[in-house]
């Protein structure tokens, strides 16, 4: 019975939330239709349709962004003005330096490997008759949450002392080859790369789908002509395929860079940023909730925004005007 009442409550909440917004528009529209005098109706109605969106955008994005910039110039409790002190203390802080360094590992590792692997798979799968099968299997992890993926990989990296049966796949393989088991998430020289591997596993499918569509868009005549002229497969790949899909490669890479700049979940679940695995976003979470230093937390957010803007500009420009000849 308890179960049914819980399900009932959930259904009720869903109906109120989803129905409420539709009722809101219906009611507002009916009011304007009924009471607004003819010539004003046309002028008021657009703003009735836009109002909820504009209010939410102001409340959730515009005003908080301005406030965050302001709070980043105040002290921990936002009581006195400290100028750029939060920023200079961030750059002097060794923990933050580590977060910057790790984020660069993430950017280079995830972007480089998942884009090149994605391209490789796209080109290879294009040549076989069972193309959808490997593509589906490799794309599948995209459906999994970062938290779910973290549990999957925590199990792969599971460590048992030497001599006992290993339950983690990676240590199982290593010990059967005669090596000592490794603490993948504890060893400081390895753990960042162990985390980066998870993101590569998740994102390669995304790169593959976009790049595969671009590869299929290359006119077959161009490739045939090159073949007749005696070009080998490697030359066709580097001199024709890659230059022709350059724009897509750029969009895919910038998209991955944007995602990785803000990576948080994987680090939070796997190591909580300990053992030298901190990244920028997990550091900000710590400043907010562990240290309660809102000034520094806001300063990190501002740095993140400054890093995102140029990449976003490139991304949107290429995304909106894909130019394959450039």
């Amino acid at each position, binding site marked *: 019975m308890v179960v049914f009442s819980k399900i009932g409550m959930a259904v009720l909440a869903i109906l109120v939330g989803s129905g409420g917004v539709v009722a809101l528009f219906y009611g507002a529209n009916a009011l304007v239709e009924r009471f607004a005098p003819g010539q004003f109706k046309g002028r008021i109605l657009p703003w009735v349709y836009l109002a909820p969106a504009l209010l939410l955008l102001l409340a959730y994005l515009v005003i908080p962004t301005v406030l965050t910039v302001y709070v980043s110039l105040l002290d921990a409790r936002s009581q006195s003005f400290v100028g750029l002190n939060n920023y200079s203390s961030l750059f002097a802080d060794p923990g933050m330096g580590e977060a910057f360094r790790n984020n660069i590992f993430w950017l280079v590792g995830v972007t480089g490997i998942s884009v090149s692997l994605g391209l490789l798979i796209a080109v290879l799968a294009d040549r076989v008759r069972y193309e959808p099968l490997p593509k589906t*299997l490799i794309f599948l992890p995209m459906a999994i949450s970062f938290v*779910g993926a973290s549990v999957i990989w925590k199990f792969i990296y599971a460590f048992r002392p030497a001599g006992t049966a290993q339950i983690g796949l990676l240590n199982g393989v290593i010990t059967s080859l005669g090596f000592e088991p490794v603490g993948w998430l504890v060893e400081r020289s390895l753990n960042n790369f162990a985390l980066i591997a998870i993101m590569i*596993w998740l994102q390669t499918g995304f790169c593959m789908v976009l790049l595969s569509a671009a590869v299929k868009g290359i006119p077959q005549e161009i490739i045939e002509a090159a073949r007749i002229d005696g070009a080998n497969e490697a030359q066709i790949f580097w001199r024709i395929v890659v230059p022709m899909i350059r724009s897509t490669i750029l969009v895919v890479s910038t998209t991955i860079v944007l995602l990785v700049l803000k990576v948080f979940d994987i680090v939070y679940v796997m190591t909580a940023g300990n053992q030298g695995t901190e990244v920028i976003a997990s550091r900000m979470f710590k400043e907010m909730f562990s240290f309660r230093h809102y000034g520094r937390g806001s300063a990190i957010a501002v740095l993140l925004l400054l890093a995102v803007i140029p990449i976003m500009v490139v991304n949107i420009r290429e995304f909106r005007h894909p130019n394959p000849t450039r």
Partner: protein
Amino acid sequence: MPPWLTRTPVHLALVTLSLLWTLPSLGLLISSLRPPADVISSGWWTVFQHPFEFTQYSLENYRAVLSAAGMGQALLNSFTIAIPATVMPIAIAAFAAYALAWMEFPGRQWLFLAIVTLLVVPLQMTFIPLLRAYGNLGLTGTFAGVWLAHTGYSLPLGIYLLCNYIQALPKDLVEAAAVDGATHWAIFTRLIVPLSMPAIASFAVFQFLWVWNDLLVALVFLGGTPTVAPLTITLTNLVGSRGQDWHLLTAGAFVTMTVPLLVFFALQRYFVRGLLAGSVKG
């Protein structure tokens, strides 16, 4: 060389990569079906020594994780969060997109540009002021608070996508309806919404999965209250508190994955389109 021989490395590479990509999830699925004692005493790959001995599998872990570990409540909470957090942005973004695309008013283009610009704002930029405001308004830890946050965050993308699609619908159709005396409400509900279904579906699939898989927004605005925590938070807590109970963790992780995987297989076309379109989200 005969053609089948030159093809061999291609097949080999594809099969190897497919296997590599599947093994992690397969290991999770198999482990979640094994009894707790087996999970911690031997590797999951040992079941392949006699894979058809069905007594070594059971659904007991799922029963345990859904009732005792609180995953059942979390599953309900995830639905309660994700469904309104998908319907609300669609409705609000669709009305706004219609107004921006087909209604005449001053500053229309300027407004559209301003909304698209908001795509660059990382969510992190908004947390601290919103958290304070939520504290004052008593919205922390409520479903309404998360719905509104997810809605606000998804509007730039939603308006951008839907506006681009709605704008491209044939002009004659809309004008003919207006000449026939149809009100904006009628044009929107009877003409624009049905015609825009492909775009709406892609955005819906993307937004639903984004919310379902989200950890950060839920952590910030819900805190850790178990009565409202979605699957992602409950699973994260399980990793922290029962990190060695692999039978619970594997079953729990699979519970969080079932809905996205169903969406993936049922709506693959919209899923891919939605992901591609949503890739610019902040």
